[in-house]
């Protein structure tokens, strides 16, 4: 597989394993396979949703993409540059092209720094601008996210949750990245504010052409903002499709269970819909079931599912699905 220079992100066969030890008195050690061989491509201006439950490996994968976590195997290219095995200097350059937004803005801002210092930091650290030009650039970034230039002198505690997330977004945009990894960017926000931030992310993408990897469990939000959807279960992708195909015709039983579990904000739709409730819980990533990892909770599971792991295979409508029976 040769690298396509036009892609913002190319993830090839990436695995992230953690060597765990048992408890204090346990002699055995075990490996937690948080991410277990995934491929993902994101094009310029595209928004891809990464969907799954806690423990499925979506945050580990995001961390690997922004260089916060070293993969055990595989290749991650951002704008054509290889992240895995890159030197410190190379990583520094690559990180300019990829930024991250976390769930809770209160935790991602330094309470002792003014908003201006926080947003300007990536620019000063890299010596891109300083003095009056820096001040102007910070003002620009603040206006871009719907705040005012004079807010630069204030501290995070003087802002509401939604405004803080705007500040975090302004900082992420300061270096004009090609890719922003958004890890549940609106989950901690109140409903009315959520819509403001989603509108902002869409508007910024239209203006700058930035790509998003949008990690979320909220399928309504995903349907609204994303072009393509990837579903992850216990370290692997189980379904990947463009938005319309995905929502019109979900195929993997896990995807269908997720969709049925998300309550629709409409009593008629919600109470009329066919329920497909999973029993049991996500198995531990240190002890992943053999064959298809989902077979322990799957209503369609047969004998083959516990022995043979299904590969992602293309379907007639273009979706990729890893299931023997879907």
């Amino acid at each position, binding site marked *: 597989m040769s690298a396509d220079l036009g892609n913002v992100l190319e993830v090839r066969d990436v695995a992230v394993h953690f060597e765990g030890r048992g408890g204090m008195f346990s002699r055995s050690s075990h490996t937690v396979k948080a991410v277990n061989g995934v491929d993902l491509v994101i094009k310029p201006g595209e928004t891809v949703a990464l969907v799954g*439950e*806690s423990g499925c490996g979506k945050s580990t994968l995001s961390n690997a993409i922004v260089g916060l976590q070293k993969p055990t195997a595989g290749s991650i290219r951002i704008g054509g540059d290889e992240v895995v095995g890159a030197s410190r200097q190379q990583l520094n350059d690559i990180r300019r092209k990829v930024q991250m937004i976390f769930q809770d803005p209160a935790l991602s801002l330094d309470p002792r720094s003014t908003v201006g210092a926080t947003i300007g930091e990536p620019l000063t650290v890299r010596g891109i601008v300083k003095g009056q030009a820096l001040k102007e650039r910070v003002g620009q970034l603040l206006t871009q996210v719907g705040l005012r230039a004079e807010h630069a002198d204030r501290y995070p505690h003087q802002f*509401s*949750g*939604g*405004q803080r997330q705007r500040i975090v977004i302004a900082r992420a945009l300061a270096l004009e990245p090609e890719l922003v990894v958004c890890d549940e960017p609106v989950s901690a926000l*109140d*409903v*009315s*504010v*959520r*819509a*403001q931030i*989603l*509108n902002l992310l*869409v508007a910024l993408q239209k203006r700058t052409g930035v790509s998003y990897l949008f990690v979320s*469990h909220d399928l*309504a*939000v995903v*349907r*609204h*903002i994303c072009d393509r959807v990837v579903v992850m279960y216990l370290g692997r992708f189980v379904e990947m499709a463009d*938005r319309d195909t995905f929502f019109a015709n979900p195929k993997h039983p896990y995807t269908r*269970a*997720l969709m*049925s*579990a*998300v*309550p*629709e*904000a*409409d*009593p*008629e*739709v*919600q*109470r009329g819909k066919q*329920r497909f*409730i*999973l*029993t*049991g*819980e*996500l198995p531990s990533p240190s002890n992943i079931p053999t064959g298809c990892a989902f077979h322990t909770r799957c209503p369609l599971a047969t004998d083959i599912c516990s022995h043979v792991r299904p590969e992602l295979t293309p379907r007639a409508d273009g979706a990729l699905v890893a299931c023997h029976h879907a």
Partner: protein
Amino acid sequence: MGMVMGTGTGTGAGTGVAAGIGTHMDTGIDLRPLLTVDDLTIEIGGAHVVDGVSFAVLPGQVMALVGESGCGKSLTAFAMLGLLPPAAKRRAGKILLEDTDLAAFSERQLRKARGKDISIIFQEPSASLDPLTTVGTQIAGAYRQHNSVSQRVALAKARDMLVAVGIPDPDRRLHQYPFELSGGMCQRIMIAIALICDPRVLVADEPTTALDVTIQAQILDVMKKLVAERGTSIVLITHDMGVVADIADHVAVMYAGRIAEIAPVRDLFRQPAHPYTALLLASVPKLDHAPKADLATIEGSVPQPHEFGVGCRFVERCPLATQKCRDEQPPLFARGPEHRAACWHSDRIGEITGVAA
């Protein structure tokens, strides 16, 4: 029935009490509210952070209290069990369990009532369970609080509860510690503790917010089953309109300490009569919404208690606001059977829903 209908205070908030019983009165079926919150007012630092909140819940029904952070929904819930934080003072209002006013109870009386008459489950189950005690002992302890039985009998009862809340392998689970269980399991344990003495009212404060969606669906199903089988009334505190659509019979939308709108769940979603409700509903992406098209937003943010004016507390963010809204607090006007909204301009609501639709 007079006791639920009365209480018209100057603010008119008391009229909200009627929601939840109207139609049943018309059919002549005697369905008296099990729980009636009447004109509840809570003060913190001189501001009424809960201001004249009234609603009633029928036996076996789910009343959802919906709103954003700081709207007073959790304080309302805590007040029902006499669990207000020290800084918060109840200035007025009754918490009627049938004819008994829990708000007039002493701490000693409250201890007897909690768990037996009215129970609560919180958002973060791991923070509510004792990490040093097996879950079986914790559930049994809740039972023995109100029943003089041996530990053996209480544990047997606890085991039955584990089955009722859908925990597989209950005999093994009884002897495990909270850290050995997942978040969803812990929340089921909390529900088991809350329900083991068969309380008539369960207050659930964001019971599924910390859980994954597939686990949330399981927990909501457990709650629905309990309502159906035991006739427990639930007051559900949430900010998730999806959860409301799934499980609530009636909904009270709260804003800045007051009830903005109260209605049967279908009416609220189909015909919101308060601009805040309408905007809240429009800001959630829907199936028929064009991808990446602008979502309706509510400009500004919720006022802080010291910023409350004399009029409608939504006035600064409301697209329909006029001078009247600034000067005078709107009472809860009837907008249909059991449907009330505190807005002077409900007749102009189409200006919002028309745009959002």
